[in-house]
């Protein structure tokens, strides 16, 4: 009797095991997922990170509802393999893939990213882009970080039309020119650069400007030097480096210690007046001086001489090691007036995670606010005319990486 009972128990146990194993094995993918809603071509898009992939999502409405990667958008991690190499113009996205040595054109339509064309691209010694400019609607000029090289790509024909080095004739022996910004001015280009000693691996702590003819890229003349701030231009591709206001060009420096090596200097705007190709000696806007020595990165031109910057607040306290530049909540959005050379206001958010994203639409700025204390990233509207902040759409699923907003039209 006892034996039978034991046998039955054992059989039941064995069956339970087998059933569990088989049922488990046959269970469908746990991810499930909501049914995606059809997407009309949206006006805006946002790129957000998850633990395993970055997603480009369509935005139907910046100011209400939810934006979610569930069932919509495209995992762009295998397309945009290096975030800072993305260049966007309207619905088209361009990207230099350093691993595959290719330059690609992609279009965001029907709510997903589609490949238009990819071409071989190994024309630069490093394929990690430091700057780009649109010479016209068809011609894109790019250069690597910390380099004297450039390449020009006709994005309509998808062909590299020119590549090489800027004229080296005035570069001292053992030095190399590191170009930070290239600014088109009619038939001239202005470049901002520093000189880097390849042997000692140090710069001479000066910032230079030069002009050269375009499209020949000849006749390079150094037009000035300065040492009040870092070399002119964005630290890396993707940050606002210069803007035009009433014909004058304002150029932002990025001494922030994310690789530039000028961390002891202040962030500042320089100016090139409308009929000139060199720095205005009477203009220097020391932003750090007004923000307790903090340094800033460029975000977006708000118009009417207002510029949105992101301020790295009290990095001495917040940055204990390298990753804190990306993880620590220490960033503040700041509006500055480049004509009046003053801080307009700090936007009223808690200290934020890494942020550099905003778009301007119909005179208002829309910012993807990476607030770690909130239940999600939210789009906020900032009207610089009325100085008013309004909370908008909720972006679900974003991790702590920088959310990037794009205006597609």
């Amino acid at each position, binding site marked *: 009797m006892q034996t039978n009972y*034991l046998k039955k128990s*054992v059989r039941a*146990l*064995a069956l339970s*095991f087998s059933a569990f*194993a088989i049922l*488990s*094995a046959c*269970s469908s*993918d*746990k*991810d*499930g*997922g909501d049914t*995606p809603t059809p997407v009309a071509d949206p006006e805006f898009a946002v790129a957000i990170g*998850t*633990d*395993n992939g970055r997603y480009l999502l369509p935005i139907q409405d910046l100011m209400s509802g939810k934006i*979610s990667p*569930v*069932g*919509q958008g495209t*995992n762009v991690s*295998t397309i945009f*393999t290096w975030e800072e190499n993305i260049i966007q113009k309207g619905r088209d996205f361009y990207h230099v893939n350093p*691993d*595959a*040595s290719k330059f690609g054109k992609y279009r965001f339509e029907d709510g*997903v990213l589609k490949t238009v064309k*990819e*071409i*071989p691209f*190994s*024309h*630069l*010694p*490093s394929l*990690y882009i*430091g700057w780009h400019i649109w010479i016209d609607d068809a011609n894109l000029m790019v250069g*690597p970080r910390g380099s004297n090289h450039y390449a020009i790509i006709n994005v309509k024909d998808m*062909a*590299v039309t020119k590549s090489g080095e800027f004229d080296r004739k005035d570069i001292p022996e053992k030095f190399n020119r590191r170009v930070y910004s290239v600014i088109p001015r009619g038939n001239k280009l202005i470049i901002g650069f520093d000189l880097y000693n390849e042997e000692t691996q140090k710069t001479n702590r000066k910032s230079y400007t030069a002009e050269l003819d375009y499209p020949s890229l000849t006749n390079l003349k150094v037009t000035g030097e300065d040492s009040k701030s870092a070399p002119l231009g964005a630290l890396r591709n993707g940050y606002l480096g210069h803007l035009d206001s009433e014909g004058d060009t304002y150029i932002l420096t990025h001494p922030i210690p*994310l*690789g530039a090596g000028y961390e002891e200097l202040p962030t500042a705007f320089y100016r090139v007046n409308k009929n000139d190709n060199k720095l205005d000696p009477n203009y220097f806007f020391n932003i750090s001086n007004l923000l307790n020595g903090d340094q800033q990165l460029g975000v977006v031109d708000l118009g009417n001489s207002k510029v949105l910057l992101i301020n790295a607040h009290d990095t001495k306290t917040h940055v204990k*090691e*390298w*990753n804190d530049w*990306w*993880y620590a909540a220490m960033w503040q959005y700041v509006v500055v007036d480049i004509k009046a050379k003053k801080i307009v206001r700090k936007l009223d958010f808690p200290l934020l*995670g890494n942020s550099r994203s905003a778009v301007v639409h119909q005179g208002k700025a829309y910012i993807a606010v990476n607030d*770690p*204390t*909130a*239940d*999600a990233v939210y789009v906020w509207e900032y009207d610089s005319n009325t100085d008013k902040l309004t909370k908008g759409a909720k972006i*679900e*699923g*974003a*991790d*702590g990486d920088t959310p990037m907003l794009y205006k597609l039209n």
Partner: protein
Amino acid sequence: MCNLKWALCLFVFLFIFRSHAQQTTLNGQVVSLENRAIAGATVKLVQTQQIALTDSTGRYHFEKITPGSYTIEVNSLGYYSKQQTLRINQNASLNFVLTTNNKALENVNVQGKSIANKVRDLGFNVNVIETKSYANSNVDINQILNRSTGVKIREEGGLGSNYTFSINGLSGNHVKFFIDGIPIEAYGSGMSFNNIPVNIVKRIEVYKGAIPPHLATDALGGAVDIITNKDLGKAIDLSYSVGSFNTHRGAASINYTLPKSGIHMNFNSYYNYSDNNYRMRNNPAAKVFLEVPTEDLTGFDTLSSARRFHDGYKSYMTQLEAGVSNKKWADIFVVGLTYNDNYKEMQTGATQEKVIGHVNETSNSLIPSIRYRKNRLLIDGLSTSLFANFANDKSVVTDTSSWNTYRWNGKPENYAPNKGELGTEKSIRHYSGYNNLAQATLNYQAADQHHINFNYMYNSNYRKSYDEIDPYNHSKEQSNRVNKHIIGLNYGTELFNKRWKSNAFGKYYSFSGNVAAEGETKNNQSKSYLGYGLASSFFITPDLGIKASYEHAYRLPTLVELFGNGTQVQGNPKLEPENSDNYNLGLFLNKQIDPKHHLSINVSSFYRNAKNYIHSTPALDNSSGSGTFRSFYNFGGIKVEGAEFETTYSYSSLLRFTANLSYESAVDRERYVQGTNRPKITYKNRIPDKPWLYGNTNLIVGQDDLIGKNTRLEFNWYMQFINEYSYNWSKLGDKSTNFYIPPQWIQNIGVTYSILNGRYNFSLEGKNITDRIAYDNAKLQKPGRSVSLKFRYNLNFI
């Protein structure tokens, strides 16, 4: 040329051993009461301590026996031991018939049942793999392990390629590896499970979830211990194989003990070489494209296939141990010296999109060691073993391409004299360091039913690096050190006539580390943790048992994870140890249906809850502007639940069929995005790019004496299946943009012809014979169809 030398060496050994003067011999067969051959039984000459193992037909053979009177003792798992005394004056024959002892049947998942291994019945969820049945195959340890339940090895290419090892869903550094109970890192950077050939290995133990304290380690998901051919008395195993992709592999394993003086010698060596120039294939279904520029450079053409052109691999290892055995003060005392040397070309980056044509890595290690074992230390029941070694490790990564890019047609693009391929500039990075290890074990059999084990392991790992091309750039210099102390204490009981066996254990982990990078503040940290666990098994009937185990395990960050390596890994000194609660529950049946039919079934389920999970992702940023860096971070963790099933049916020595299936679902257990209040959208979702259902079948059909006396002809068909799996989070993104890695069915066949009772063996093997496109990791393609021929000479003197 090297290959020729190697072959010559093997045959010189062969000749030396063959020419040894013969005296007399003893042979015979061991069978069960049902007249079924018993393979793997241990036959021992008590007076000389010589040992022989029976082959698949139950036969054993001793050579060079001095005439005299001998007691011959036979042991085999599941049978009562037997002894017989015999006077041997000339060549003699002696057969044994053993009686079944059901109580001794082991309660674990066993492939082959030849070695009576105490570990099996301790309740741990362990696969014990006897490598004897693979000895004639042209496989390495990884390929054998990949056939085992719950184990997934994800290789990035052919011979010598990088791989990720997964046990029940926990992978990478979460799993620890041992050789003879010693952590593999103590043998230098060149020692790896995918270059150790099967012929120097006796047995492999795979512990899943809970790890017994005799493997003093910090592992989160499991541990693998390979037991090499050592201390076997007198034995020799030599093999050489040649195969596709110009692959050559040789191995030698020689054990020798002089019975009177007790002088003892173990020699293990291997050599591997391969061009690994297998064909890469275009595969739109997996979104893998072999793109090469059009002639006018205005776009890309897609190649249907292309040969790998920079993936050569060469490695060799020699290990010599010499000392004494069977002394009053030591059962074994040997000093050893191990040398290994590796050369490896790099063909791809983290994905196939990054084609590399010029980067290579060389490394070598020289490791003196000392090993001591005493079974009765001062008092009855007390035994000890000690091990210590010092690994001196050097490696060089050379990245001096001068070309901007390579493509799959093997052609470089855009000459750039200062350019490297991994970095933006050329570099020749030198790493040097050492690994000190000391390990002590004390076992005490307090009474027949109670025993206590104590283990201590000290490990100190130091490493420094510099760039030969850029020696003044101190940002590339680092010197790092990590010290670990691990103490394990185990109490074991065997109750109810040994039907119920249990082990309770605790482990103490302590580590300290520092990094001194030029120009940076010195970084120190020191921490300690306590882990614990329980393993138990119970035989419900003599054939049927149940087992369960649990461990709260810790894994300490490694030197490279904490401090980086100056090339691919950027350090994260803030890393915390990870921990996991691991549960296993299993049921096993081992049934001798009748004299010829045998059936075994193992079913088990498991659950893992890993927290503070250390995971590598591309570094968020680095100042060099290079995308090749990765960093390790603590994540919230994963939960894994799963089940596995394996059955083996055998019919005498004619047929053996094994099938297994493993299911594991690893899900994100982090509720909120780290450092924020945001609910995580992937919470409870299955982790992508990870196989979740896979299995194997293995059929062996063999016939003895088919082509002559004392021969065996054996046919083997092995199939591997991996179900399709999602490359991305499957619920995220538009369905049209997501894709899956297609199901993979890989077929391998082999035929082996053995003569003189397995002394000479010839094997012809075909792998992936249907030439399917196979991926393991990040869509990195593995070799297609290949063929190899192997010769093996095996002799147990004794």
